[in-house]
Structure formats: structure tokens, C-alpha cells
């Protein structure tokens, strides 16, 4: 059963992409740690950190593609799931600081001492344990997606209305997390991390490990997403996107199909957030900003929605562009992003990967047509000979 699922998932392009991801998971840290700094092949730590960040964004875009590209749910609030995963990881990292904080309180993180809190809030319990925190990375975004989706999909909220309420959801969470009495560090968020699993988060080896984990998790989620998309369930998903009522009248429970996909996608976004936080060293309520979620949509659209690989490429390209632009011409970045989105919508509606695939398909079709012209269609279309 599971093997069938995995075998179906391993279609040509996916195998290559997973191969590349696993390759860089080994190669980049090796070039960073083992190659001397003066060598041309050396990858500086800041570049590796940047690439690790892009991989987390790529995973977030992949998660969005599953719901948007395949199921037609345009979520403008995926940044919320990413941020929640990030906060779960951030809470673990805060608990690891222990008495090394500015105030030296062995139990309470600095911001709580600063707010004169006497004891740890109940929802901070357990986060000192890594396995529990990792469970929460999946569980919290998954639960939010489940509750949200349960109501939205059952009452058949669709299209632009659904997009708007997802946007409202992330905005509401942002406002909530900005409040000091929520217990998540308010405006400043969670930062000043020291250790992860007993080793310093700043150490070269830890950074390399985090980079590798990002690449491996992206590869794993790509495998899962591909398995979902290639299965009969995946075909039903595309059916929901293209002709929802037909799916319903065929006897499928559309709300369950959407709910499952939405929850899986939210969990992937949570993983992305959890890997992101130790690499950038901070999580704050700004991650919930509606604009962040919209940017994810842009990456996905640029790469090509409904292609799985496209969003990964889109996220990396756009963010690399962003790093360059914000360094070289800081005031132009937003214009460039807006211009890019308009250009893609107008000239590449299928995105980069979608356009390449489409072009390839058209070329194949032309070839077959040319063969037919020459009267050699007998072996291509056997029934035409009758």
C-alpha cells in the first residue's frame, strides 16, 4: 500500500528534484565545513544560511501549491501556519536558554521575567522536550487548519471569500501575537537562542546540520506531495479545482477532501517555519503579516502552480532576487516584486515550469502532426488505418 504510494510518487522530474535536493544537503555543508576558506569552492557560512532560508521558503511554497495549484483553494494565510511552526520551535529554543538569560531565571524566559510573571504559563509546559516541540510544530498548524477548514469547507465558502477569510485569520493572529499578555514575547518575539539539542545554534556544524535538514525535509515533503498528487486522490483534487459540483455529484465528500489537503499543507508550512527559525535566529509577530502570505502566492505563481517543482524554483529565484535587490537598490524591491507578479500574470500565466512543460507538450504534438503529414501515422494512431 505504502510502497505503491511511494512508487507512484517517484515520477521522472520528482526523482531528479529529490536527487538534487539530497545532493546539496551533503555538498553545501561539505563545501562550507571541509573546504578551506580561501578556496574558490568554499561556501561562506552566510551564503549557506541564506540558502537554508530559501529552502524553508521553498517548502512553504510547495505547501501552498498543494492547496492552491491542485485543489484550487487560494490561501492568503499560509504564512500563519509557517509562523506557528516557527513559534513552536522558538519556544523550544527559549526553554533551552535556561539560566543563561539576562535575568538568569532557570525556568522563565527573559521576557516573562521582565513582565513580572511568577510562573510559566501552561502552554509553555513540555516545550523543553524536543520531541514534544516537534510534535507541536505539526500539531498546532494542523489543528488551526482543521478547525478553520472544518467550518469554511462545510459551509462551502469558496473562491475570493475563502481567500479573504484566510487573510483575516493571519491578520488576527498577528494582532494577537503582538500583545504582551499572549505570552509569546509580544512585539519582540522570541530570540537570543543558545542551544538546539545540546549544541550551540551558532556553531558551524549546527548551521550545516540545519541546512541539511531543510534540504532533506523539502525532499521528503516533495515526495509526499507527489505521492498525493499522483494518486487517485490527487486526480480527485484536480477535479475539485476544475469542476467541484461534478465531484460532489459523483459521491465524493468535497469538504473532507479539502480538509485533508489543507491540514497536510498547513503541517508542511509548519515544518518550514520550524526549520526557518533557528537559521534566522528570531521569530516575531511580523511573520504573520498578511503581506508575507501574499508573497508566497507570488513565488508559487512565478514558478508555476500545480507543478510542485515550480513553486520550489519560484521561491528560490524570487528570494534570491530579493536578496540582491534589497542590497543593491533597496528602494526598488517592492516595485520589482509588483512588476514581476504583473509580468508573470500577463506573459507567463502558467509560471516558469508550467510554460516549459506546456512548450514541451506543444513540441511533441507538432512532431506527431508532422509525422502524420508524411503519412506515417499508422503506428501512432492504429485505428486510423481501419
Amino acid at each position, binding site marked *: *500500500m*505504502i510502497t*505503491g*504510494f511511494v512508487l507512484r510518487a517517484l515520477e521522472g522530474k520528482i526523482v531528479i528534484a529529490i536527487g538534487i535536493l539530497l545532493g546539496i544537503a551533503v555538498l553545501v555543508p561539505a563545501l562550507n565545513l571541509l573546504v578551506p576558506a580561501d578556496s574558490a569552492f568554499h561556501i561562506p557560512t552566510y551564503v549557506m544560511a541564506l540558502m537554508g532560508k530559501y529552502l524553508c521558503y521553498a517548502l512553504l511554497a510547495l505547501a501552498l501549491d498543494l492547496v492552491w495549484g491542485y485543489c484550487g483553494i487560494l490561501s492568503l494565510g499560509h504564512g500563519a501556519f509557517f509562523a506557528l511552526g516557527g513559534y513552536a520551535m522558538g519556544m523550544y529554543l527559549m526553554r533551552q536558554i535556561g539560566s543563561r538569560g539576562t535575568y538568569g531565571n532557570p525556568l522563565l524566559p527573559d521576557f516573562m521575567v521582565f513582565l513580572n510573571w511568577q510562573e510559566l504559563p501552561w502552554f509553555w509546559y513540555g516545550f523543553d522536550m524536543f520531541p514534544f516541540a516537534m510534535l507541536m510544530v505539526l500539531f498546532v498548524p494542523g489543528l488551526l487548519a482543521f478547525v478553520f477548514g472544518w467550518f469554511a469547507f462545510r459551509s462551502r465558502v469558496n473562491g475570493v471569500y475563502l481567500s479573504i477569510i484566510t487573510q483575516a485569520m493571519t491578520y488576527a493572529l498577528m494582532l494577537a501575537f503582538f500583545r504582551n499578555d499572549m505570552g509569546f514575547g509580544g512585539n519582540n518575539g522570541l530570540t537570543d537562542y543558545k542551544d538546539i539539542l545540546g549544541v550551540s545554534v551558532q556553531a558551524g556544524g549546527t548551521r550545516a546540520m540545519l541546512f541539511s535538514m531543510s534540504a532533506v525535509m523539502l525532499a521528503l515533503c516533495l515526495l509526499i506531495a507527489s505521492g*498525493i498528487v499522483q*494518486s*487517485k*486522490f490527487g*486526480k*480527485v483534487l*484536480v*477535479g475539485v479545482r*476544475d*469542476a467541484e*459540483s*461534478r*465531484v*460532489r*455529484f*459523483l*459521491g*465524493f*465528500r*468535497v469538504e*473532507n*477532501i479539502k480538509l*485533508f489537503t489543507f491540514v497536510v499543507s498547513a503541517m508542511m508550512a509548519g515544518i518550514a517555519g520550524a526549520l526557518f527559525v533557528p537559521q534566522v535566529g528570531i521569530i516575531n509577530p511580523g511573520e504573520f503579516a498578511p503581506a508575507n502570505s501574499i508573497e508566497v502566492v507570488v513565488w508559487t505563481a512565478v514558478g508555476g502552480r500545480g507543478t510542485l517543482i515550480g513553486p520550489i524554483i519560484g521561491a528560490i529565484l524570487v528570494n534570491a532576487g530579493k536578496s540582491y535587490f534589497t542590497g543593491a537598490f533597496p528602494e526598488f524591491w517592492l516595485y520589482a516584486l509588483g512588476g514581476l507578479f504583473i509580468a508573470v500574470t500577463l506573459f507567463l500565466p502558467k509560471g516558469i515550469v508550467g510554460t516549459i512543460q506546456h512548450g514541451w507538450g506543444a513540441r511533441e504534438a507538432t512532431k506527431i502532426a508532422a509525422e502524420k503529414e508524411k503519412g506515417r501515422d499508422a503506428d501512432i*494512431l492504429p*485505428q486510423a488505418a481501419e
Partner: protein
Amino acid sequence: MTLISETRSKSLLYLDNVSVSFDGFKALNSLSFVVEPGELRAIIGPNGAGKTTMMDIITGKTRPDTGTVLFEDSVDLTKRDEADIAQLGIGRKFQKPTVFESHTVWDNLELALNRPRGVFSTLFYKLSDDDRARIGEILETIRMSHRKDELAANLSHGQKQWLEIGMLLAQEPKLLLVDEPVAGMTDAETAETAILLREIAKTRSVVVVEHDMGFIRDLGVKVTCLAEGSVLAEGSIDFVSNDPKVIENYLGR
């Protein structure tokens, strides 16, 4: 009273005194209508007569304000939703052909096949030899074996209509509701469709809504004429088309 309960217990689909109104407009006005097992029935009527609304009510898309809707004399359809009703064995073809355009003809049929439809059963579904044979059979019936790998988007209008009928067959329904199957078809396609529907009706009940009187004559079945949300006349096509009320309300216009 005995007569009524007898009709009811023998019926596949039983509508009694069904009314529904939208913003004060009575789309159905105490409509009563019975379909027996294995029956092929045609429904005619002017625009706004309530034909599509009736289908909406049977398939659970719309809830009636009052009235009884029973399937196989036991299941109250007014309490079920679309997915439930489809699983009970009622298939529906829409007025506008609705197929999955970005899937191949084969995949369209595979999705429609009457198999477990839960999330996990579809996630781990494997095409069995039986299912393969069944899809092949349906492709034969709808005469599309040679186009099985074609994307549904590339089919002609008439072929999409047939593919949708094929999908309904794959669903193995006991009752098939077909809304204007020959709209936009050529004469040859229309004649073929009549043959196809008669063949399908051998093993299940079919209700066809159609405007094309020639097509209904081709089908040669019992006809129900609806107007203003209730039944105007019922009987053979000649009987119905000679009914003065039908002429006044529908044919004469």
C-alpha cells in the same frame, strides 16, 4: 389510499406534493411524480417550468419547502446531501457538459467508478484488473475507446456529453437524471444519443429532460409535461402533444 401506498412501495423515486419557492417565486408547486424501476421517462416543459429545480431537489442540491421525496420507498432524500444521494445510486448529468477537462477520458471514468470514495481509500487506490475491464466496457458503450488517452478538454461538445454519460454509467446508479443531453448536438449525434440512452435504460431507470421533440419521439417513451412547477399532462408523446393545455402552455408558444 391502498392505491397510493401501492404506487409508493413499487416506485424507485416518489415525489409527492413538493413545493419550493425562491424569493416568492414558486419554482415547484405541489409537484407529484413517480418513476418506476427500469423506466425511461422524458420530461418536457417551457423554460421556468421547474425541470431543473426538480432535479436539484432529487439530488439534494436544493431543499424543498414542503413535500415528500422518497427513493426506493425508504430513503428520505430531503435529509441527505449530494454526496450521500450519489452514493445511494442517483446519477446526474448537468445541462452544460461537466467533465474534468484537465484529465484524460480514462481518468474521468476512473474517478467516476463506483469504488470507496474516502480520503485514504483514494490515496492508496490501485487500479485493479476488474476496474480496468469495467472502464474498457464503458469506453465501448460510449464509443470512445480510441480517444481514451485524450484530454477531456480536447473533446467536441457532443463527445463531452457522452463522456459525462459514461461517467454516470461508471457510477452504477439505479436512477439516472439527464438534463438536456442533446443540446448543441448534430442530428447524427442526437440519434446516436437516443440509442445510447435506450440501451442504458435496459438496466436502470432514466429520467431525461429535453426540449427537442424529435429526440423524444425517437426515444418513444412516457412523457411528463411540466408547467409552472406542476404536472400538466402525462402519457405517450402523441397523447401529450395533443393535449390542449400542453399546446397552449408549451408547444403553441
